[in-house]
Every structure is written in structure tokens, then in C-alpha cells.
């Protein structure tokens, strides 16, 4: 009898769980996670829709979406994955736009490097230079362009260590294993502990813009919640939050001139 009661209880809780307000499933590139949490907080203040966030690498999300993962929106870390999904006919092409443009920063956790970050890089007086794997992460590809622009590829190559993504690159630097590391500005502004003299904001003209695109998946074509959230991302309120975290929001020219 006890078992029957327990079964009934489980059944009941499963049913009530299913009856809850339907949430919107959103896949988000890891570098945008802090920003996205703030955006969702703001969105849910005024909306009845719940946002269920999954964070991960864009490459994994691409593979999952191709195999029918139940995401409705995909905030990629680049434009290549949305491109590929679009070619496969898996996204609503007209929904796609650049929600953020990433800024690259060269950071050191060593106090004695303060204010000398750029000089240290050019002099080559550091033990290791960490950056995200250029094959996997747009921030890594941008790093290579910057090193090329500064003609530092050959002189620094023996000191390169590559993280899987910018999060791991951050760990290489914060743990003291690498003196210098190219990471996303959003990572430094997100933690708030980082002093301004501990990083060098890489000028935009040294690399191609790190554009990050969002797409509405075809399987979620009729999802009101996903559309509502996309509209919110287009709003000025959302753009301000995105800019606060160190990204260039779409059409926010004011942030672009700080070089």
C-alpha cells in the first residue's frame, strides 16, 4: 500500500511539473554566460515566459542541434555555426542578427606587470602566452590576427599555450601558470575584481570584429516565448546590459570610439 501511495505521489508531481508555465530553451555560448544571466533576470521581470539556459561551446551546440536538440534559440560565439545551421535549413534565416561583438583584452594576473602589459608582450619578457585555440574559438582566431599585425608570431610562438576556450585561458592566467593571456574583455568586467591597469584593451583595428550571432531554430518557428525574448534582445535596455559587460552591442557606436 505504501508503494502505491508513493507511486501516486510521484505520478502527481510529474503531472504538476508538466503543467507548469512552458519555458523557452536557450543555448548560449559560454563566453556570454554572465551577460545572459543578467539579461534573463531583466527579461523575466516583465515577462511571463521563463528562460531555461544551457551554457556550452558553440561547436557542441551545433552538433546537438543537428541531431534534434530541443533548443529554441541559439546564441553562438561566432557566425560560422549559425552559417552552417542556416545552410542545413535548420534556422529561420530572417531571425538571425549579431547580438554582440566581442572585445579582446590581454590580461596578466601578475601585480608587477601592471601598466606594462603591452610592453611585456612586445619585449617578449614573459613565460607563457595563453590564448583560446584559434580553431575552436573566435577570440583565439582574433589573437592570431593581432600577433600577425604586431609581427610577433615567430618571436612568441615557442611560448604559446592554448586553452579550449576563453574560460580555460582565463584559468591559465589567473592560476599564475601563464604570465599573459588574450581573453574576452567581458570576463574581466564580469568579475569586477580586476584592476584596469592589469589588462590591455586590444584596439579593434588589429583584428576582424568578433561577431556573435543568434538564430531562432526552425523547430521553434511558432514559439511565442522565443520571439518575445528575441524582441527583448533587440531593445535598448538589453543593448545597454550587453555593453556594460564589455561587448559592443549592435549599433552602439558610442562604445566603439574608446580606443
Amino acid at each position, binding site marked *: 500500500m505504501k508503494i502505491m501511495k508513493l507511486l501516486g505521489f510521484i505520478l502527481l508531481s510529474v503531472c504538476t511539473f508538466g503543467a507548469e508555465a512552458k519555458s523557452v530553451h536557450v543555448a548560449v555560448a559560454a563566453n556570454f554566460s554572465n551577460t545572459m544571466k543578467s539579461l534573463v533576470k531583466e527579461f523575466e521581470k516583465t515577462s511571463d515566459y521563463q528562460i531555461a539556459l544551457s551554457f556550452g*561551446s558553440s*561547436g*557542441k551546440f*551545433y*552538433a546537438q542541434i543537428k541531431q534534434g536538440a530541443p533548443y529554441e534559440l541559439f546564441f553562438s560565439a561566432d557566425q*560560422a*555555426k549559425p552559417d*552552417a545551421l542556416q545552410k542545413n535549413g535548420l534556422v529561420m534565416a530572417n531571425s538571425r542578427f549579431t547580438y554582440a561583438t566581442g572585445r579582446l583584452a590581454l590580461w596578466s594576473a601578475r601585480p608587477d606587470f601592471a601598466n606594462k602589459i603591452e610592453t611585456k608582450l612586445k619585449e617578449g619578457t614573459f613565460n*607563457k602566452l*595563453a590564448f583560446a*585555440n584559434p*580553431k*575552436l574559438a573566435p577570440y583565439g582566431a582574433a589573437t592570431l590576427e593581432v600577433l600577425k599585425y604586431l609581427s610577433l608570431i615567430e618571436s612568441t610562438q615557442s611560448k*604559446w*599555450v*592554448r*586553452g*579550449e576556450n576563453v574560460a*580555460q585561458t582565463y*584559468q*591559465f592566467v589567473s*592560476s*599564475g*601558470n601563464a604570465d599573459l593571456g588574450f581573453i574576452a574583455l567581458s570576463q574581466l568586467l564580469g568579475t569586477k575584481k580586476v584592476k584596469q591597469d592589469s589588462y590591455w584593451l586590444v584596439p579593434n583595428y588589429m583584428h576582424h570584429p568578433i561577431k556573435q550571432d543568434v538564430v531562432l531554430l526552425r523547430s521553434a518557428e511558432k514559439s511565442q516565448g522565443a520571439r518575445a525574448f528575441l524582441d527583448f534582445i533587440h531593445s535598448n535596455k538589453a543593448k545597454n546590459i550587453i555593453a556594460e559587460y564589455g561587448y559592443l552591442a549592435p549599433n552602439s557606436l558610442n562604445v566603439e570610439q574608446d580606443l
Partner: protein
Amino acid sequence: MSLSDGDMATIWLTLRLATTVTILLLIFATPVGWWLARTKSWFKGPLSAIVALPLVLPPTVLGFYLLLAMGPNGAIGQFTQALGLGTLPFTFWGLVVASMVYSLPFVVQPIQNSIEAIGNRPLEAAATLGAGPIDRFFTVVLPLAKPGFMTATILGFAHTVGEFGIVLMIGGSIPGETRVVSVQIYDHVESLEYVQAHALSGVMIVFSFVVLLLLYTFQRKNKAVGMTYGS
């Protein structure tokens, strides 16, 4: 199916890493397994728990703590720097040390179990015949515990080949130094190069299957001999 030079380099590196780790682990784990099998000390429980600990933490988390510990501010890092060896992350030997931690239970436990299975009697008999401790180890324990050592070798090797999370964390993906096959496959998958990923994964699966098959076939024959000896 064609493998690039980069893919081949990762295969050789992986084999070099797994072989080095397996040999070092067998040397290190044998006395540990021996002691755990024979001791009545109160410390047996705590030591067994420490040996089994790497099973608990997810590899990337274990890798994260090793990165901190082996870094310039960590305990291991301070020690290696004091010895004039620099720090271990981003080096081949850093991967060796990390892999030894990660594969430790897979090598210690089979050795310990097989030595426990021998029991006291063969050793006592050998002792009454005048065999010293070292003689007893090489002429009695080693032949009788051979299946355990084989299992330890297979598991240690296979587990190191399949290692991924820790390498990703402390390796830094340096070609020829820390970029192993599992990381290379992962890079291919993440950058949507599925054809290359399939090719390299295929090679790994076939190679691993053949190695495991040979070793298990050998071990089965060996076990049969051991059993007739024991009964």
C-alpha cells in the same frame, strides 16, 4: 581515410604518454598494492581511500586542481621550482604526473587484489625453504599475481589513452608536447571537421580493440595456468 601529419603526431605522443605512465605506475603501484594487501595497519583504510579518490572527481575538476597545485603558486609548483625544474603545466612530464594520479586506482587495485588472493601460505612455505623477502617477491608473488599485473597494465594503459579532461585542463594543446589524440579528436569535432574526427576516432577504436584483444587473450591463457597451479 587519411590522417594528417598533425593527427599522426598526436597518435605517437599518446602512445609515448601511455607507455611512460604505465611503466612508472607499475613501479610505483606495486609496493603500494603489496603493502595494502599485506598490512594490518590502521592506515590501510585511509590509504585505500586516497588511492581511490581520483575516481570521484570529474577529470576536468581534478585537472583544475592539478593546474592550481602545479602552478607557480601551488605546493607542487613551489617544490618543482625549488628543484630547478620550473613548473609542470604545459609540459609532457606534467601530463605524465597528472595521468599517474588519474590512473592510479586502476593499477593499484588489480595488483592489490591478486596479491591478497595468494594468501599467506605460499609465502610462508617459501620462507621456511629459506627464501628472503626479495626472493619471495620475484619467485612466488610475481608469477602467482601475474594476471593481476596484466590487468593493471591493460587498465593503466587504456585509461591513459582515453584520458581527456585533465589533459585539456593542464596541457595547453602544444603540438608534439601535450596535444594528444583525444584532444585532437575533440578539436576536430568542435571545429565541425567531422570527416577528420571520424578518421582519427576510427583509428583509435581499431587500435585499442586490437591491443585489448591481444592482452585479454594472453591473460585468459595465463589465468588458466594459474588456476591449475592453485588447485
